């Protein structure tokens, strides 16, 4: 096996490697949403900022799809992490 990049950690929040992502794509997952749900990639506090571009590139490469057809997963609120405390304080104002 050539100087493997499989050990590269793609998702730092959840500690997921490129190898694990490739394995799931080979098993038949074809979208970023499916990979997110099965591997938790992009679910962590960084909200997929670093891993999603790498995952999209890998899907595009392995499935021979144009990048434009490999959509990022749905962005969900809140936009930044927020403490329950600040919501409590906010609603009391």
């Amino acid at each position: 096996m050539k100087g493997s990049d499989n050990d590269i950690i793609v998702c730092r929040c959840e500690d997921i490697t490129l190898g694990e992502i490739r394995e799931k794509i080979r098993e038949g997952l074809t979208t970023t949403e499916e990979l997110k749900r099965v591997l938790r990639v992009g679910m962590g506090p960084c909200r997929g900022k670093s891993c999603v571009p790498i995952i999209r590139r890998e899907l595009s490469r392995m499935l021979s799809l144009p990048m434009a057809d490999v959509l990022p997963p749905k962005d969900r609120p809140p936009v930044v992490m927020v403490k329950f405390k600040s919501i409590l304080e906010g609603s009391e104002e």
Partner: protein
Amino acid sequence: MSFDVGVIGGGVIGCAIAYNLAKFGQKNVVVFERQYPGAGSTGRCGAGVRQQWGLEMNCRLARGSVKIFEQLSSELGVDIEFRQGGYLVLAHTEKQIEQFEKNVSLQNSLGIPSRIITVEEALEIVPYLNPESFIAATFCPTDGHANPLLTNYAYAKAAERLGVKVMKFTEVSGVERSNGVFKLTTSRGNFEVGCLVNAAGGYSKPVAAMVGVDIPTYSERHQILVTAPVPRMFDCMVISFTSGIYAQQVPQGSFVLGIAENEEPSYNTNSSWQFLEHITYEVTSILPVFGELSIVRQWAGLYNKTPDSQPILGEVSPGFFVAVGFSGHGFMIAPKTAEIMAKLILGIKPDIDISYLSLDRFEKGELIVEPSVVG
């Protein structure tokens, strides 16, 4: 292309029914899934597994499912992260305690090891609880929690290994019945199936309507959120039927929590700010320490409801089966329910009587009264 059995919906219910059919030897089974397994309510749910029910049938379905969950990771070949940290159910009124006493004696008679506990005992299990916020609780140590995404995925994969065809990104848009077969129009071509199963979750009603069967189901948005991971705080699910709140720390360290809200029937799965305010208020009143936790993400999914919040199971017209209307507890009873559905489809007598859950109960006015539902 033709199949013996077609399942519409690749959520935990549809995939588990397909898996059980194949396990019992049925060949030529197909699952049609509009998106991918886990895209519907299953992948959005709290995935709590509770056996503390007020009706014998629900206790049996949940108890049977826990027995399956206990060995499901090895059966399906994927670690579904099933953990038995228990469920702590808070009581806030004397009337609730009376009901819980009845529930517990029924549960115990069915082999479910639940018990009534005092506030002090509850604090030993979850030291972070506000002792002013409840007057007693029930606890069942063998209740638990699994990863719903992995469970759904594991059932789909195991079904495929047994020969089931799982068709992702395949939406069924029309059904015609002729000469004893169902002719399906889908976004990926036409198919014929001998027997059809509606496991379409939030979309059970439009799917039944395609077959010309009217079922009294409707959908309702339920919202939920996840916090940033923190070191282990407690192992059980904490719930209250008064506020409809539930909170559970998942193995990776995050808390997943949701709350029942007044919702109109709809297919809306957008998130709202009001939900954040509502759940913040309720969670910090029972677990003040939550003020310090950070919310990473919120989302929403559909409860598929019926007039009595209990599912409809069985054959509703020749060759057409439904497993729908699971309200907020379709995940926890999925393993046993799917096994029973597969038996019904194959003409094998199931070991739990589910005739109470037939469609005609609504016409006959024999609605089920389950005192212990969330939302």
